[in-house]
Protein backbone atom coordinates (compact mmCIF):
# COMPACT_ATOMS: atom_id res chain seq x y z
CA UNK A 1 0.00 0.00 0.00
CA UNK A 2 2.33 2.76 -1.21
CA UNK A 3 0.09 5.61 -0.06
CA UNK A 4 0.55 4.55 3.55
CA UNK A 5 4.28 4.25 3.26
CA UNK A 6 4.48 7.78 2.00
CA UNK A 7 2.92 8.81 5.33
CA UNK A 8 5.52 6.79 7.18
CA UNK A 9 3.06 4.46 8.80
CA UNK A 10 4.86 1.83 10.84
CA UNK A 11 5.00 -1.44 8.87
CA UNK A 12 4.05 -3.47 11.95
CA UNK A 13 0.89 -1.40 12.32
CA UNK A 14 -0.07 -1.82 8.67
CA UNK A 15 0.48 -5.55 8.95
CA UNK A 16 -1.50 -5.87 12.16
CA UNK A 17 -4.40 -3.77 10.87
CA UNK A 18 -4.58 -5.80 7.67
CA UNK A 19 -4.58 -8.97 9.76
CA UNK A 20 -7.11 -7.88 12.35
CA UNK A 21 -9.50 -6.09 10.00
CA UNK A 22 -9.55 -8.74 7.28
CA UNK A 23 -12.92 -9.55 5.64
CA UNK A 24 -15.15 -12.22 7.16
CA UNK A 25 -18.11 -14.27 5.96
CA UNK A 26 -21.60 -13.13 6.88
CA UNK A 27 -23.58 -15.52 9.10
CA UNK A 28 -26.19 -17.62 7.31
CA UNK A 29 -28.87 -16.18 9.57
CA UNK A 30 -28.49 -12.71 8.02
CA UNK A 31 -30.91 -13.47 5.19
CA UNK A 32 -33.51 -14.66 7.69
CA UNK A 33 -33.19 -11.33 9.47
CA UNK A 34 -33.84 -9.52 6.19
CA UNK A 35 -36.80 -11.73 5.31
CA UNK A 36 -38.34 -11.23 8.73
CA UNK A 37 -37.34 -7.69 9.65
CA UNK A 38 -37.40 -6.98 13.33
CA UNK A 39 -36.31 -4.09 15.47
CA UNK A 40 -32.70 -4.68 16.46
CA UNK A 41 -32.29 -5.63 20.07
CA UNK A 42 -29.41 -3.92 21.70
CA UNK A 43 -28.10 -4.80 25.09
CA UNK A 44 -27.74 -1.87 27.43
CA UNK A 45 -24.33 -1.20 28.89
CA UNK A 46 -25.48 1.57 31.16
CA UNK A 47 -24.80 -0.42 34.26
CA UNK A 48 -21.67 1.51 35.09
CA UNK A 49 -23.72 4.16 36.85
CA UNK A 50 -27.21 4.12 38.25
CA UNK A 51 -28.54 7.40 36.92
CA UNK A 52 -28.68 6.42 33.24
CA UNK A 53 -30.79 3.41 34.23
CA UNK A 54 -33.19 5.65 36.12
CA UNK A 55 -33.31 8.06 33.19
CA UNK A 56 -33.99 5.22 30.79
CA UNK A 57 -36.75 3.86 33.00
CA UNK A 58 -38.41 7.27 33.21
CA UNK A 59 -38.09 7.71 29.47
CA UNK A 60 -39.53 4.25 28.87
CA UNK A 61 -42.54 4.90 31.10
CA UNK A 62 -43.29 8.19 29.38
CA UNK A 63 -42.75 6.65 25.92
CA UNK A 64 -45.11 3.77 26.66
CA UNK A 65 -47.70 6.21 27.98
CA UNK A 66 -47.34 8.37 24.87
CA UNK A 67 -47.49 5.32 22.65
CA UNK A 68 -50.66 4.05 24.30
CA UNK A 69 -52.30 7.44 23.90
CA UNK A 70 -51.21 7.51 20.27
CA UNK A 71 -52.56 4.03 19.58
CA UNK A 72 -55.84 4.86 21.25
CA UNK A 73 -56.20 7.84 18.96
CA UNK A 74 -55.16 6.09 15.80
CA UNK A 75 -54.87 2.28 15.80
CA UNK A 76 -54.30 2.37 12.06
CA UNK A 77 -50.83 3.87 12.50
CA UNK A 78 -49.16 0.52 13.10
CA UNK A 79 -50.86 -1.29 10.31
CA UNK A 80 -49.99 1.45 7.83
CA UNK A 81 -46.32 1.15 8.68
CA UNK A 82 -46.50 -2.62 8.46
CA UNK A 83 -48.10 -2.52 5.03
CA UNK A 84 -45.00 -1.01 3.46
CA UNK A 85 -42.73 -3.53 5.15
CA UNK A 86 -44.99 -6.35 4.06
CA UNK A 87 -44.98 -5.23 0.45
CA UNK A 88 -41.21 -5.07 0.54
CA UNK A 89 -40.95 -8.50 2.12
CA UNK A 90 -43.30 -10.06 -0.41
CA UNK A 91 -41.46 -8.50 -3.30
CA UNK A 92 -38.19 -9.82 -1.92
CA UNK A 93 -39.38 -13.30 -1.07
CA UNK A 94 -42.80 -14.88 -1.63
CA UNK A 95 -41.89 -17.91 0.50
CA UNK A 96 -42.72 -15.99 3.65
CA UNK A 97 -46.43 -16.57 3.04
CA UNK A 98 -48.08 -18.86 5.61
CA UNK A 99 -50.82 -19.91 3.23
CA UNK A 100 -50.63 -19.94 -0.54
CA UNK A 101 -53.72 -19.91 -2.66
CA UNK A 102 -55.20 -18.06 -5.61
CA UNK A 103 -58.72 -18.81 -4.41
CA UNK A 104 -60.33 -15.91 -2.50
CA UNK A 105 -62.72 -18.30 -0.72
CA UNK A 106 -59.86 -20.40 0.64
CA UNK A 107 -58.02 -17.27 1.73
CA UNK A 108 -61.15 -15.94 3.44
CA UNK A 109 -61.56 -19.20 5.35
CA UNK A 110 -57.90 -19.26 6.33
CA UNK A 111 -57.95 -15.66 7.55
CA UNK A 112 -61.14 -16.27 9.52
CA UNK A 113 -59.72 -19.40 11.12
CA UNK A 114 -56.34 -17.91 12.00
CA UNK A 115 -57.04 -14.25 12.69
CA UNK A 116 -60.79 -14.21 13.35
CA UNK A 117 -61.13 -11.54 10.69
CA UNK A 118 -63.83 -11.63 8.05
CA UNK A 119 -62.49 -10.61 4.68
CA UNK A 120 -65.15 -10.74 2.02
CA UNK A 121 -63.38 -10.82 -1.31
CA UNK A 122 -65.38 -10.87 -4.59
CA UNK A 123 -64.67 -14.49 -5.45
CA UNK A 124 -66.66 -14.64 -8.68
CA UNK A 125 -64.93 -11.67 -10.22
CA UNK A 126 -61.45 -12.64 -9.02
CA UNK A 127 -61.84 -16.17 -10.38
CA UNK A 128 -63.45 -15.10 -13.64
CA UNK A 129 -60.13 -15.05 -15.48
CA UNK A 130 -60.64 -11.50 -16.67
CA UNK A 131 -59.45 -9.84 -13.47
CA UNK A 132 -56.17 -7.91 -13.33
CA UNK A 133 -55.68 -9.32 -9.85
CA UNK A 134 -54.00 -12.63 -9.03
CA UNK A 135 -53.98 -13.67 -5.41
CA UNK A 136 -50.81 -15.21 -4.01
CA UNK A 137 -51.73 -16.12 -0.43
CA UNK A 138 -51.83 -14.85 3.11
CA UNK A 139 -49.72 -14.44 6.19
CA UNK A 140 -50.48 -13.87 9.85
CA UNK A 141 -48.65 -11.14 11.76
CA UNK A 142 -48.74 -10.74 15.53
CA UNK A 143 -48.18 -7.14 16.58
CA UNK A 144 -48.41 -6.12 20.23
CA UNK A 145 -51.00 -8.77 20.91
CA UNK A 146 -53.05 -7.92 17.82
CA UNK A 147 -53.48 -10.32 14.95
CA UNK A 148 -53.09 -8.83 11.51
CA UNK A 149 -53.85 -10.72 8.31
CA UNK A 150 -51.70 -9.86 5.30
CA UNK A 151 -53.03 -10.76 1.86
CA UNK A 152 -50.51 -10.79 -0.97
CA UNK A 153 -51.45 -10.40 -4.60
CA UNK A 154 -50.23 -9.24 -7.95
CA UNK A 155 -52.04 -6.56 -9.85
CA UNK A 156 -51.11 -5.57 -13.39
CA UNK A 157 -47.32 -5.23 -13.42
CA UNK A 158 -46.88 -4.79 -9.69
CA UNK A 159 -47.30 -6.37 -6.29
CA UNK A 160 -49.61 -5.40 -3.46
CA UNK A 161 -50.23 -6.30 0.16
CA UNK A 162 -53.50 -5.78 2.00
CA UNK A 163 -53.33 -5.79 5.79
CA UNK A 164 -56.42 -6.13 7.94
CA UNK A 165 -56.85 -6.07 11.70
CA UNK A 166 -59.72 -5.69 14.07
CA UNK A 167 -60.10 -2.21 15.48
CA UNK A 168 -61.55 1.20 15.01
CA UNK A 169 -59.72 4.31 13.91
CA UNK A 170 -62.19 7.19 13.79
CA UNK A 171 -65.96 7.43 13.77
CA UNK A 172 -65.88 9.10 10.39
CA UNK A 173 -63.84 6.29 8.90
CA UNK A 174 -66.30 3.66 10.10
CA UNK A 175 -69.15 5.12 8.15
CA UNK A 176 -70.92 3.23 5.37
CA UNK A 177 -68.72 4.90 2.76
CA UNK A 178 -65.30 4.88 4.34
CA UNK A 179 -62.74 7.46 3.36
CA UNK A 180 -59.76 5.97 1.56
CA UNK A 181 -56.63 7.93 2.35
CA UNK A 182 -53.81 7.78 -0.20
CA UNK A 183 -50.14 8.49 0.51
CA UNK A 184 -46.68 7.73 -0.77
CA UNK A 185 -44.40 5.45 1.24
CA UNK A 186 -40.80 6.50 0.67
CA UNK A 187 -39.58 3.79 3.03
CA UNK A 188 -41.01 1.13 0.72
CA UNK A 189 -39.57 2.28 -2.58
CA UNK A 190 -42.15 5.05 -3.03
CA UNK A 191 -45.01 2.56 -2.98
CA UNK A 192 -48.62 3.70 -2.73
CA UNK A 193 -50.35 3.34 0.60
CA UNK A 194 -54.12 3.36 0.98
CA UNK A 195 -55.78 3.07 4.38
CA UNK A 196 -59.32 3.06 5.64
CA UNK A 197 -61.53 1.65 8.36
CA UNK A 198 -64.78 -0.18 7.92
CA UNK A 199 -67.07 -2.38 10.04
CA UNK A 200 -64.76 -2.43 13.06
CA UNK A 201 -61.78 -3.45 10.94
CA UNK A 202 -58.75 -1.37 9.95
CA UNK A 203 -57.28 -1.81 6.48
CA UNK A 204 -53.99 -0.74 4.92
CA UNK A 205 -52.94 -1.52 1.40
CA UNK A 206 -49.48 -1.01 -0.12
CA UNK A 207 -48.92 -1.28 -3.82
CA UNK A 208 -45.90 -1.06 -6.08
CA UNK A 209 -47.92 -0.17 -9.17
CA UNK A 210 -46.06 3.05 -9.78
CA UNK A 211 -48.35 5.05 -12.03
CA UNK A 212 -51.74 4.04 -10.70
CA UNK A 213 -52.47 4.57 -7.02
CA UNK A 214 -55.88 2.92 -7.37
CA UNK A 215 -54.78 -0.22 -9.20
CA UNK A 216 -54.51 -2.21 -5.98
CA UNK A 217 -58.14 -1.34 -5.15
CA UNK A 218 -59.16 -3.73 -7.94
CA UNK A 219 -58.88 -6.52 -5.38
CA UNK A 220 -62.25 -5.50 -3.95
CA UNK A 221 -63.65 -2.97 -6.41
CA UNK A 222 -64.44 -3.46 -10.07
CA UNK A 223 -64.31 0.34 -10.19
CA UNK A 224 -61.92 1.80 -7.61
CA UNK A 225 -63.47 4.24 -5.13
CA UNK A 226 -62.78 7.94 -5.36
CA UNK A 227 -59.74 9.02 -3.46
CA UNK A 228 -60.26 11.73 -0.91
CA UNK A 229 -56.72 12.68 -0.11
CA UNK A 230 -53.70 12.38 -2.29
CA UNK A 231 -50.19 13.49 -1.50
Amino acid at each position, binding site marked *: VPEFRSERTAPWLELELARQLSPVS*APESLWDRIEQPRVPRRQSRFHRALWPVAAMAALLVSSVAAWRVGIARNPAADIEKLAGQELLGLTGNPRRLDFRSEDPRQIRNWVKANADIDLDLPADRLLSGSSDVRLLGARLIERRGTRIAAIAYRVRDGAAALLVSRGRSTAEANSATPTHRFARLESA*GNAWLVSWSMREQVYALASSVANDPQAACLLCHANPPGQTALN
Partner: protein
Amino acid sequence: MVLEQTDRELVEACQRGERDAFRALFERHKDKVYSIALRYSGDATIAMDIAQETFLKLFSSIRSFRGDSSFESWLYRLVVNSCLDQKRRTRRLMPLVDGALDALRAPGESVFDEIMRSELSSRVRSAVSGLPPDQRIVIVLRYTQGLTYEEIAEIVGCSAGTVASRLNRAHKSLERRLSRLAGATGADRA
Protein backbone atom coordinates in the same frame (compact mmCIF):
# COMPACT_ATOMS: atom_id res chain seq x y z
CA MET B 1 -16.44 -4.54 -15.75
CA VAL B 2 -18.35 -7.76 -16.31
CA LEU B 3 -19.12 -7.87 -12.61
CA GLU B 4 -20.36 -4.29 -12.66
CA GLN B 5 -22.57 -5.08 -15.62
CA THR B 6 -23.96 -8.11 -13.83
CA ASP B 7 -24.66 -5.99 -10.79
CA ARG B 8 -26.56 -3.60 -13.00
CA GLU B 9 -28.55 -6.44 -14.53
CA LEU B 10 -29.44 -7.68 -11.08
CA VAL B 11 -30.48 -4.21 -9.99
CA GLU B 12 -32.67 -3.88 -13.07
CA ALA B 13 -34.22 -7.26 -12.29
CA CYS B 14 -34.89 -6.10 -8.72
CA GLN B 15 -36.48 -2.93 -10.07
CA ARG B 16 -38.79 -5.10 -12.18
CA GLY B 17 -39.74 -6.95 -9.01
CA GLU B 18 -38.00 -10.22 -9.85
CA ARG B 19 -37.71 -11.91 -6.49
CA ASP B 20 -34.71 -14.11 -7.13
CA ALA B 21 -32.67 -11.06 -8.04
CA PHE B 22 -32.92 -9.73 -4.48
CA ARG B 23 -31.45 -12.92 -3.10
CA ALA B 24 -28.74 -12.99 -5.77
CA LEU B 25 -27.76 -9.41 -5.00
CA PHE B 26 -27.68 -10.23 -1.31
CA GLU B 27 -25.52 -13.32 -1.81
CA ARG B 28 -23.06 -11.37 -3.88
CA HIS B 29 -22.55 -8.54 -1.41
CA LYS B 30 -23.40 -9.94 2.03
CA ASP B 31 -19.80 -10.67 3.09
CA LYS B 32 -18.66 -7.20 2.10
CA VAL B 33 -21.46 -5.48 3.99
CA TYR B 34 -21.10 -7.66 7.07
CA SER B 35 -17.31 -7.32 7.14
CA ILE B 36 -17.46 -3.53 7.14
CA ALA B 37 -20.17 -3.58 9.80
CA LEU B 38 -18.23 -6.00 12.01
CA ARG B 39 -14.89 -4.29 11.67
CA TYR B 40 -16.44 -0.90 12.31
CA SER B 41 -18.55 -1.90 15.30
CA GLY B 42 -16.32 -4.61 16.76
CA ASP B 43 -19.45 -6.45 17.87
CA ALA B 44 -21.14 -9.32 16.00
CA THR B 45 -24.63 -8.44 17.26
CA ILE B 46 -24.35 -4.81 16.23
CA ALA B 47 -22.82 -5.88 12.91
CA MET B 48 -25.88 -8.01 12.20
CA ASP B 49 -28.13 -5.04 12.96
CA ILE B 50 -26.11 -2.79 10.66
CA ALA B 51 -26.06 -5.36 7.85
CA GLN B 52 -29.79 -5.97 8.21
CA GLU B 53 -30.52 -2.26 8.11
CA THR B 54 -28.26 -1.79 5.09
CA PHE B 55 -29.98 -4.48 3.03
CA LEU B 56 -33.45 -3.32 4.03
CA LYS B 57 -32.55 0.21 2.94
CA LEU B 58 -31.07 -1.18 -0.26
CA PHE B 59 -34.13 -3.22 -1.17
CA SER B 60 -36.59 -0.51 -0.23
CA SER B 61 -34.86 2.16 -2.30
CA ILE B 62 -33.60 0.08 -5.19
CA ARG B 63 -36.27 1.48 -7.50
CA SER B 64 -34.74 4.91 -7.06
CA PHE B 65 -31.25 3.75 -8.11
CA ARG B 66 -30.56 5.36 -11.45
CA GLY B 67 -26.99 4.20 -12.03
CA ASP B 68 -25.41 7.65 -11.87
CA SER B 69 -22.67 6.12 -9.75
CA SER B 70 -21.68 2.46 -9.60
CA PHE B 71 -23.89 0.12 -7.65
CA GLU B 72 -20.96 -0.82 -5.44
CA SER B 73 -20.34 2.81 -4.46
CA TRP B 74 -24.02 3.18 -3.64
CA LEU B 75 -23.97 0.04 -1.51
CA TYR B 76 -20.82 1.20 0.28
CA ARG B 77 -22.52 4.53 1.05
CA LEU B 78 -25.51 2.72 2.52
CA VAL B 79 -23.41 0.56 4.82
CA VAL B 80 -21.18 3.48 5.82
CA ASN B 81 -24.24 5.57 6.69
CA SER B 82 -25.67 2.69 8.70
CA CYS B 83 -22.38 2.37 10.57
CA LEU B 84 -22.19 6.09 11.30
CA ASP B 85 -25.83 6.10 12.40
CA GLN B 86 -25.04 3.69 15.15
CA LYS B 87 -25.69 5.60 18.33
CA ARG B 88 -23.67 3.39 20.53
CA ARG B 89 -19.95 3.61 20.27
CA THR B 90 -18.62 0.17 20.86
CA ARG B 91 -15.65 -0.03 23.06
CA ARG B 92 -14.31 -3.43 23.75
CA LEU B 93 -12.64 -2.85 27.06
CA MET B 94 -10.72 -6.07 27.36
CA PRO B 95 -8.61 -6.41 30.47
CA LEU B 96 -4.95 -6.67 29.76
CA VAL B 97 -2.15 -7.94 31.90
CA ASP B 98 0.42 -5.37 30.93
CA GLY B 99 3.49 -7.33 31.93
CA ALA B 100 2.32 -10.41 30.12
CA LEU B 101 2.93 -8.83 26.75
CA ASP B 102 6.63 -9.13 27.33
CA ALA B 103 6.19 -12.87 27.38
CA LEU B 104 5.35 -12.78 23.69
CA ARG B 105 8.99 -12.39 23.05
CA ALA B 106 9.74 -15.66 24.82
CA PRO B 107 9.98 -18.56 22.36
CA GLY B 108 8.60 -22.05 22.84
CA GLU B 109 5.42 -21.23 24.75
CA SER B 110 2.89 -22.08 22.09
CA VAL B 111 -0.26 -22.19 24.24
CA PHE B 112 0.65 -18.99 25.98
CA ASP B 113 1.56 -17.45 22.65
CA GLU B 114 -1.87 -18.35 21.38
CA ILE B 115 -3.55 -16.74 24.35
CA MET B 116 -1.48 -13.64 23.91
CA ARG B 117 -2.16 -13.56 20.20
CA SER B 118 -5.85 -13.50 21.05
CA GLU B 119 -5.18 -10.73 23.53
CA LEU B 120 -3.26 -8.87 20.86
CA SER B 121 -6.21 -9.11 18.48
CA SER B 122 -8.47 -7.71 21.15
CA ARG B 123 -6.09 -4.82 21.77
CA VAL B 124 -5.86 -3.87 18.12
CA ARG B 125 -9.61 -4.10 17.57
CA SER B 126 -10.24 -2.23 20.77
CA ALA B 127 -7.89 0.53 19.64
CA VAL B 128 -9.71 0.74 16.30
CA SER B 129 -13.07 0.84 18.09
CA GLY B 130 -11.77 3.74 20.15
CA LEU B 131 -11.13 5.91 17.09
CA PRO B 132 -13.59 8.70 16.28
CA PRO B 133 -16.21 7.48 13.75
CA ASP B 134 -14.86 9.52 10.83
CA GLN B 135 -11.37 8.05 11.27
CA ARG B 136 -12.60 4.55 12.06
CA ILE B 137 -14.67 4.26 8.90
CA VAL B 138 -11.78 5.21 6.62
CA ILE B 139 -9.52 2.72 8.39
CA VAL B 140 -12.10 -0.03 7.91
CA LEU B 141 -12.71 0.80 4.25
CA ARG B 142 -8.98 0.90 3.65
CA TYR B 143 -7.96 -2.30 5.43
CA THR B 144 -11.10 -4.44 5.20
CA GLN B 145 -11.91 -3.64 1.59
CA GLY B 146 -8.57 -2.35 0.31
CA LEU B 147 -10.16 0.72 -1.27
CA THR B 148 -8.13 3.59 -2.69
CA TYR B 149 -8.23 7.13 -1.29
CA GLU B 150 -10.39 8.22 -4.22
CA GLU B 151 -12.86 5.39 -3.74
CA ILE B 152 -13.12 6.09 -0.02
CA ALA B 153 -13.56 9.79 -0.74
CA GLU B 154 -16.49 9.11 -3.07
CA ILE B 155 -18.18 6.85 -0.53
CA VAL B 156 -17.66 9.06 2.50
CA GLY B 157 -18.41 12.24 0.58
CA CYS B 158 -15.19 14.20 1.08
CA SER B 159 -11.98 14.88 -0.82
CA ALA B 160 -9.15 12.39 -1.20
CA GLY B 161 -7.01 14.84 0.77
CA THR B 162 -9.41 14.64 3.70
CA VAL B 163 -9.29 10.85 3.52
CA ALA B 164 -5.49 10.98 3.63
CA SER B 165 -5.62 13.33 6.59
CA ARG B 166 -8.06 11.14 8.51
CA LEU B 167 -6.00 8.04 7.81
CA ASN B 168 -2.87 9.80 8.93
CA ARG B 169 -4.46 10.88 12.21
CA ALA B 170 -5.89 7.41 12.75
CA HIS B 171 -2.51 5.80 12.16
CA LYS B 172 -0.79 8.13 14.56
CA SER B 173 -3.42 7.50 17.20
CA LEU B 174 -3.25 3.74 16.76
CA GLU B 175 0.52 3.79 16.76
CA ARG B 176 0.49 5.68 20.04
CA ARG B 177 -1.96 3.28 21.65
CA LEU B 178 -0.38 0.14 20.35
CA SER B 179 3.28 1.02 20.34
CA ARG B 180 3.97 -1.51 23.06
CA LEU B 181 2.72 -4.22 20.74
CA ALA B 182 5.26 -3.41 18.06
CA GLY B 183 7.69 -6.00 19.37
CA ALA B 184 4.97 -8.47 20.23
CA THR B 185 3.69 -8.70 16.67
CA GLY B 186 7.07 -9.79 15.43
CA ALA B 187 6.54 -7.65 12.35
CA ASP B 188 9.31 -5.30 13.23
CA ARG B 189 11.69 -8.15 13.66
CA ALA B 190 11.22 -9.44 10.16
